C-alpha cells in the first residue's frame, strides 16, 4: 500500500467526511451533517490520500457519496448559503485568546445573520432587537463569558 495513504473507519472516517465536506465552501452547513451521516451509514471503511485527492478507482458507495457532495456543491441555491456556525468554538477562542481574539474572529464573519446563526448554534443568548454590528459582537462576547461562568459554577 502506498505510504501516503491511510485507512479510515468509524469515528475517524466520519470526521474525515465531515472535514472534507466542510472544506468545500459550496456545501451548506446543514448539508454537511446530513451528508456526513449518509456517507457514514453507507460506507464501512475507506483509504484516503492526503492532501485530499479523489482516487481514480473508487468503490460504488464512495463514488455515490462523492457524486452527492458534488451535486450539493454545484447547486447555486446551496452555494450561496454555505456557512458552518460550528466552524469555531466561541468558548475555545475566548479561553485561548481572550476578548480581543474572539472579536477578531467574529469580525471575520461577514453578515450579521451569520453571527446570529453562530449565537443560536452555540447557545449564546442574543437579543433579537440588536441590529448594530458592534453591539452584536459585544453581546456575543458577553454571552460567551456567561457560558464559561455557568460551567465554572456547575463544577463548584
Amino acid at each position: 500500500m502506498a505510504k501516503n495513504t491511510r485507512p479510515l473507519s468509524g469515528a475517524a472516517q466520519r470526521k474525515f467526511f465531515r472535514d472534507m465536506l466542510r472544506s468545500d465552501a459550496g456545501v451548506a452547513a446543514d448539508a454537511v451533517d446530513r451528508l456526513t451521516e449518509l456517507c457514514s451509514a453507507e460506507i464501512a471503511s475507506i483509504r484516503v490520500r492526503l492532501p485530499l485527492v479523489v482516487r481514480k478507482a473508487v468503490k460504488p458507495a464512495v463514488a455515490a457519496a462523492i457524486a452527492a457532495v458534488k451535486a450539493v456543491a454545484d447547486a447555486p441555491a446551496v452555494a450561496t448559503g454555505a456557512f458552518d456556525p460550528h466552524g469555531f468554538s466561541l468558548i475555545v477562542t475566548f479561553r485561548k485568546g481572550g476578548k480581543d481574539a474572539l472579536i477578531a474572529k467574529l469580525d471575520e464573519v461577514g453578515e450579521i445573520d451569520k453571527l446570529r446563526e453562530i449565537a443560536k448554534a452555540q447557545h449564546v443568548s442574543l437579543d433579537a432587537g440588536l441590529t448594530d454590528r458592534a453591539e452584536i459582537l459585544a453581546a456575543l462576547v458577553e454571552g460567551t463569558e456567561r457560558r464559561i461562568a455557568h460551567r465554572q459554577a456547575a463544577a463548584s
Partner: protein
Amino acid sequence: MAEFLAVANRKGGVGKSTISVMLTHAFAVWGGKRVLLLDLDSQCNASLILQGGEGWVSARKAHKTIADYFLDTFDESAGAPRDYLVHNVGDVRDSNGRKPVISLLPGSLMLEDAQGELYIKEARQAKDPDIVGSRVRGRLERMIRRFEGNYDVVILDCAPGLSFAALAALKTADLVLVPFRPDYVSQLAVDRVALLIEGRRTGADLAELPLDARRYACVANSMRGTGREQNIFDEIALDHPMLNAHLPQSAAIADAFDYRDDPRSIEEKYGDATPDVRAMYEEVASRLTLRLAA
C-alpha cells in the same frame, strides 16, 4: 503486579460499562494480558455482557458477587478473594481460537445495601461520620488491591454517583478513564469527576496541575461527527486530558454487547467499530504504561 484501570464518571449513561468490557477484551486478546474486571455497579451491565444472564444468576447463587466479597471479607479474617471470581468469561476468543484469560468479580443488585451494612459495622468503632466513611473506603481499597498479584490488568467498572466502592476505585486506580457523551451536562460531569480524581476543590486548583500530570484521561463516546459535538470536545479539551481516539455512535458497538454463547473473534464482535476500539485500547495501554513509569 497488576495495573489498575478505573472507568468512572458520576454521570450515568456515558458508556462506563461498555468501555470497561471493550478494554477487558482488548487487553486480554490484543495485549495478551491476564485481565480481571470488578463490577462495582449494581446495574451489573458489565457482568451481563461478559457472562450473559444465566451466568450471572449462577454466580449470584454461588455467592460469587462483589457484594458477597465485600460483606464476607470486610474484616479481612475470612474468605480468599479468588473464591469469589468467575473465570473464562466473555464471548471472544483469541487469534489461536482459545478463550483469553478474563476473570470477573460479578456485580450485585445488593451492592448499595452491602455498603450500607459495612458503614454501620464500621460506625460501631467510631462516631465521626467522616472517619467512618474514610475507614470504609480504606478497607474497600485494600480489598480491591488483594487481586493485584494474580492479574496483569484489573479494570474497575464504577457505578455513577459517589459510592464508597467508587471512591475506593478512584483512589486505587493507576489511571482513570472518564467516558463522556458530547453534550452539555456530560461536559459539566467531566469537570466534577476530575476534581474528585485529583482531590482538588475548584477548577482553579485543578488548572494548576498540568494536563500531562493528571491521573485521568477522557474519552468521547457516541460521537456522530456533528459540529456541535466537535465544539464540545474542543471545550472539554481545554481543561482535561483527552484520548485522541473516540467511539462513534455505532450499531456495531450496540450489537456487540448482546452476549452470545458461541465465542467469536474480537474483530467479529466489534465489526466495523474494531479500529475505534483498537485505537482506544492502544492509547489507554500507552497511558497506563506512562503513568506507572512516572
